[in-house]
């Protein structure tokens, strides 16, 4: 059972990292629009096509992802 002495602190560190990532996700507004992203994959293909056609505004496309 001695391995527990080691593994529990390791688990705690992992939990802390998870919490940190979660805070980061909230801060970067990942939870602001939960309805939208699920459907985005449907339109993905066209975004690439658009990129080829519209090389003048690459920034705009990047920001949409």
């Amino acid at each position, binding site marked *: *059972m001695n391995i527990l*002495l080691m593994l529990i602190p390791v688990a705690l560190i992992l939990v802390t990292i*998870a*919490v940190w990532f979660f805070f980061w996700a909230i801060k970067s507004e990942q939870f602001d*629009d939960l309805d939208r992203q699920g459907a985005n994959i449907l339109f993905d293909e*066209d975004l690439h096509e658009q990129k080829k056609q519209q090389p003048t505004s690459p*920034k705009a496309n990047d*920001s*949409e992802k």
Partner: protein
Amino acid sequence: MTNPLQPDCYHCGLAIDSNVDLTVTINEQVQTMCCLGCQGVAQSIIDNGLENYYSYRTEKGAQATELIPQELTELLSYDIDEIQQEFVEQMSGAQKSVILTVENVTCAACAWLIEKQLVTLPGLIQCNVNTTTARLSVTWVDNELKLSKILLQVAKVGYKAYPFQPDAAEENELATANAYLRKLVVAGLATMQVMMFAMANYFDVLGTLSDGLADYFRWVSFIIVLPVVFYCSQPFYANAISAILAKRFNMDVSVSLAIILSFIASVIATVNDTGEVYFESISMFAFFLLTGRFIEQRAKKKAAQTSSNILKLIPATAQVISEGTQRTVPAKTLSIGDIILVKPGQIIPADGIIVEGNSNTNEAILTGESLAVIKEIGDNVYASTENIDSPLTIEVSCNSHDRLISQIIRLQEQSSNNRPKLATLADSIAQYVVIGIISLSLLTYVGWTLLGADDAFWIAIAVLIATCPCALSLATPSAYTCANATMTANGLLVKSADAFDILAKITHVCFDKTGTLTSGVFKVSHVDSALPTSEILALCATLESSSNHPIASAFTDYQDPSYQLSDCQASSGGGIEGMINGHHYQLGSKNYTLGLTDTVVSTAQSDQQVTIYLSCKQQLLATIYLVDSIRTHSKSLIDFLTRLNIDTTILTGDASNHGDYVMAQLNTTYLVKGQSPADKLDYLMSLQQGEIVAMFGDGVNDAPVLAGAHISFAMGSGSDIAKSSADIVLLHDDLTKVSAGIKLSLKVNRIIKQNFCWAIGYNLLAVPFAIAGMLPPYLAALGMSLSSVVVITNSLRLLKGKQ
């Protein structure tokens, strides 16, 4: 007339009139369209290669309407720097960024469509549509692109984007919701971890867990619980402290006590290695409560966002005439002595005196009077009223601060600060609960000490944990949140948290008349004529088709394409005339249509009606009676309230007999007419001495009463200030939803009481065991979660009325 075999409009899904033949080829199939607006939008979607919108959308679009010239000029005024200051953020360099609200964004396909439409604009840096909030955020380079161009581009695919007035509460609600989410996650993860160690203790019946390991688990649990107690539970402490400072108890006081005392006890137990630890109960308790608070907060955030979205920022501009030239300037920069021109159909931008022209103005929004007011040279006109039929030149007579509307807004702010507070059901019960829990724990401690028990302290803590008001604190928020979702689905936007509590207790309801009980729009009530009524109405409709006088809208339903209008001319204060199919017709006042000059205006007409005359070559053809029609559902709402023994009052600014007519039609208990906004407020305040009052209104003049009433409703079509003062906004102006809302709030009250009964009942059941010292920590934790689940399930029943 619609043909049952004809498909609905492919773009918006509305039925197509049989005489409309519009099509667009989409994905190689010919699709029918209902109107030019939809056809234009569909065509521009196809032209831009965005057919995918139609393949992937989950909801039909909204019917598209073409922008009228007035809207186009309005769009252009968004480019004026002084106007942009209010809502545009200046980024580095020439970049600007703005967040707009977009109407009718229903699914991800809409968002995609708008973004694709904008991406092609040169000078656009970034655009993003959020479908949850229906907001579009754009960043652009100002010298390459104009904001009006962006708005126009969005309009081309059938959406309307507006700058909006962010609700003061919105930013706050959003930050609080995110803070709760963070705390919720920490509490959740901590609960999982602590529960793992607690389980080991719970199931250690064989005593195989070595002392050293059990001790280790306790210390680890202690470390994990630290963030729960010192970070996650902060909101409870903050609420508890502010309640105690206000010399009252609320549920958070008992929550904080339970958390802090059991934490201290568990720490003592860990350090001294005696007694029970309750770390898992603490974190689970915090987790459950935070879940409730988070969901409640999310509903509040959504309500704040929706109410911001409906407060559109329409640019208030004015045409200033100086040295013979016209300039467009923002209305707020007008100063005394400026000469401004107001065209028919425009909103008057400032208070002033007419120096040239005469016209009718619609002052319903300020005074509640439904009839247009005749204005001549030397008369006062007021900001935010509408100029109806001919151009006016106005000299500005006061600064923006002294305008009539600013005075009303000040009155509204004052009354919202003085609004009477009602104690909620939950708060009044909390008083007893807190006192009960503390005295019970104390008695247990004293009792066991007197009996000479060594573990008196531990038993007292067990009592505290057993009576822990977890389910009690969830009882109201869970019910409110579910009821809120149901109300929103029914078209009632609830903005204040205690709306349900008050709504269930109302004893008196006051209504504004114009725009609230009545539609504020004239309808034909009857026609006196030798000719067929339909023919008369078609003639009137044709004459009025080019007019924007409020009376004209009464005839829009009667238009007949076989009548051709030419040489149409309007005369202010008189009427309108024109040639129809070769005959000359006049429609308007008696003097005007019959060519009379007598100044004695017939007084026979009753005040609730407007009487107009139609003549051909000065021969009277027909007398038409128009009335500000009562909304179809007003009667059923008043009947519903009367059945509940709730008194009703019509509280109107209109001094005419129309109020008596509406009262007679609807059978309200009282009528108070001719009231200024301050009079209305005085009347309301005197009513609120003994009664719980709900107020309905729509105009600027209602804003102070709406802000001062115990609970208030604003019509969705009403003025922005009314909507921002009210607790509940009727999104579709449907008064029947109000009776549904009142029924729901009665049900909410019932459910909350059931929840309390259950939660208190469970606590009372567990208390004897705890006092007897027979309640181990795991049973306490189990009981707590079970009773919370029961309470939440009970609250979920409120979602049943949701459509």
